[in-house]
């Protein structure tokens, strides 16, 4: 759907070099990178706010590299929202609708629909100067949806929101994507990426260092930078359920693996994360305070700069990092049966 081929744009301070990605229709494509990596610049190139020095951008089979901004139908949600201060919330949302030949009744109806979609119907008559950051962002989102974009570009939309708003927006973005909207979302937060992306690219110094599905990139980082950027390899899609005795909350992976955790949430979906260094390997089941204990088989051992990474299959693959000393003492090797244990408090849950 959107093919970016070897885009280059060089500024004095930083540059995008030979940047290529391929986004399919319906993708939730995330671009992950530290700040200053040229992520925002990339979105401005795709939206047409700036023109690349070289390379092409092909959208739905058409070369749009030199197409004017206002003919592109690629909506960009600006990081600072870019709400028009002289227009009410309603007129902001109606702005793209006024370009279509609609009766005013039809236009009002649609403004309400889009406001409803992002849950700001109650703010419709307000002046933007009276709104909070999170509310302004939703106005901006409603306004972009009103233009009915073929593709939505998001510039760190979650970074300035508090936890509760974050969750709400994540749910909304996921819903929009499920309804068929292709989304390209840039972020520096890998947890966000795990919970939203179906494909991602890691960008560093203006070039892509790796791209693929979250599993491919996070569990098998192509180089040191990606590994450091992403950090957590043990992440699993999960469902939180209540267990009858004592009503403890457990996370269910693949319907059969139960992980104990500490969470105020219940009966919802999300991801759990467990750091490699928080997991203990032993030859037999440990008698300890750790209440997550599983038996599995070592499928791979990978020497690293700092210690050795061991992959253990307990139905799903767990990544564990340990020192060479422990590795040798336990006589670990591929094919060996071992136990892994970790505390409920070392399991982190990210709600969908």
């Amino acid at each position: 759907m959107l093919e970016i081929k070897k885009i280059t744009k060089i500024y004095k301070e930083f540059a995008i070099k030979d940047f290529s990605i391929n986004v399919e229709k319906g993708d939730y494509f995330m671009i992950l990178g530290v700040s200053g990596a040229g992520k925002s610049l990339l979105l401005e190139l795709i939206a047409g706010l700036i023109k690349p020095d070289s390379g092409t951008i092909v959208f739905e089979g058409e070369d749009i590299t030199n197409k004017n901004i206002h003919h592109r139908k690629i909506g960009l949600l600006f990081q600072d929202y870019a709400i028009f201060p002289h227009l009410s919330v309603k007129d902001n949302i109606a702005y793209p609708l006024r370009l279509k030949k609609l009766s005013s009744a039809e236009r009002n109806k649609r403004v309400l629909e889009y406001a409803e979609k992002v849950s700001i119907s109650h703010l419709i008559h307000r002046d933007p100067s009276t709104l909070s950051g999170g509310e302004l962002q939703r106005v901006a989102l409603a306004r972009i949806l009103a233009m009915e974009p073929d593709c939505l570009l998001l510039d760190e939309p979650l970074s300035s929101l508090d936890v509760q708003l974050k969750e709400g927006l994540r749910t909304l973005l996921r819903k929009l994507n499920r309804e068929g909207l292709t989304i390209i979302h840039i972020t520096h937060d890998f947890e966000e990426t795990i919970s939203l992306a179906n494909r991602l690219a890691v960008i560093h110094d203006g070039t892509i260092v790796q791209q693929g599905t979250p599993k491919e990139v996070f569990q098998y980082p192509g180089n040191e930078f990606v590994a450091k950027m992403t950090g957590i390899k043990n992440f699993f899609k999960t469902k939180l359920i209540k267990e009858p005795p004592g009503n403890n909350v457990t996370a269910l992976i693949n319907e059969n693996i139960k992980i104990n955790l500490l969470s105020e949430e219940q009966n919802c979906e999300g991801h759990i994360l467990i750091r490699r260094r928080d997991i203990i390997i032993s030859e037999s089941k440990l008698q300890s305070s750790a209440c997550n204990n599983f038996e599995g088989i070592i499928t791979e051992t990978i020497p690293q700069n700092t210690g050795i990474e061991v992959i253990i299959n307990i139905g799903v693959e767990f990544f564990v990092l340990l020192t060479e000393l422990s590795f040798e003492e336990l006589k670990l090797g591929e094919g060996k049966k071992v136990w892994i244990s970790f505390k409920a408090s070392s399991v982190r849950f990210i709600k969908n």
Partner: protein
Amino acid sequence: MGHDLLSQNYNPVTRNSQPILRDQRNINLLFTALGGLVLLFIIAPLAGLFFSTSPGNIIETSADPEVQRSIWLTLITSMAATLCFAIAAIPLAYLLAKRNFRFKRLVLGIIDLPIVIPHSAAGIAILGFISRDSAVGQLASMFGLNLVGHPIGISLAMAFVSIPFLMNAARDGFANVPIRLEKAALNLGASPLRVFFTISLPLARRNIISGLIMMFARGMSEFGAVIIVAYHPMITPVLIYERFGAFGLKYARPVSVIFIVVALIFFIALRLLSKENKNAGNQKNN
């Protein structure tokens, strides 16, 4: 914010060092006294003018058809000059604020030119430009018009000397419109022309309105350029001059007072209008 900054700067002075405080107070006193003199210099002649003219005289003069005609003529020619030239000047101000092009500095210099050249010289230049043997004069005479001594000629002379006020204010206004908002509007599918009318122009309106007021006021008070282009029909500044020359100070005073009052009424009314806009704009920008 300005207030905070001031008090921050001021506090250490008041707390720590009395001599500095005294110096500060002396400077404030000195500057206030000097500033007071300037204010007095502006107010005193005007007040003198008002007090030395009897109400009866003013009422009598304001009933004079010649005076009334000249005031209407002045208001209308200046208003026409402002509105007609605004249509072309505002888009140019936009270009100057938002685009970079060759010779931009030259264009900026040309725009400021009418401020620095003597207005009588400007009048001579305009006269040459619109007289019967110029291209413009010939074009006008094809429609049976002689621009010299015609309200249109007066408007042109007023516009020539007052256009920089509008241009510069409008340019500042457009320069303050964040480019991101314009890009956001383009991104939503609006054409550049539409973005100009729906985003840039409304957001720059404060400065534009204030520029229009300045241009109108400046045009209305123009004497030097106008008297060369048209002695008749008489705009009020010329009428004041004529009464002074023919009858003396006593007869020039009532017309002056009436014209100043009319000008002030317009000036204050338009100023209030732009202030309302300014407040609205401030609220929305916060």
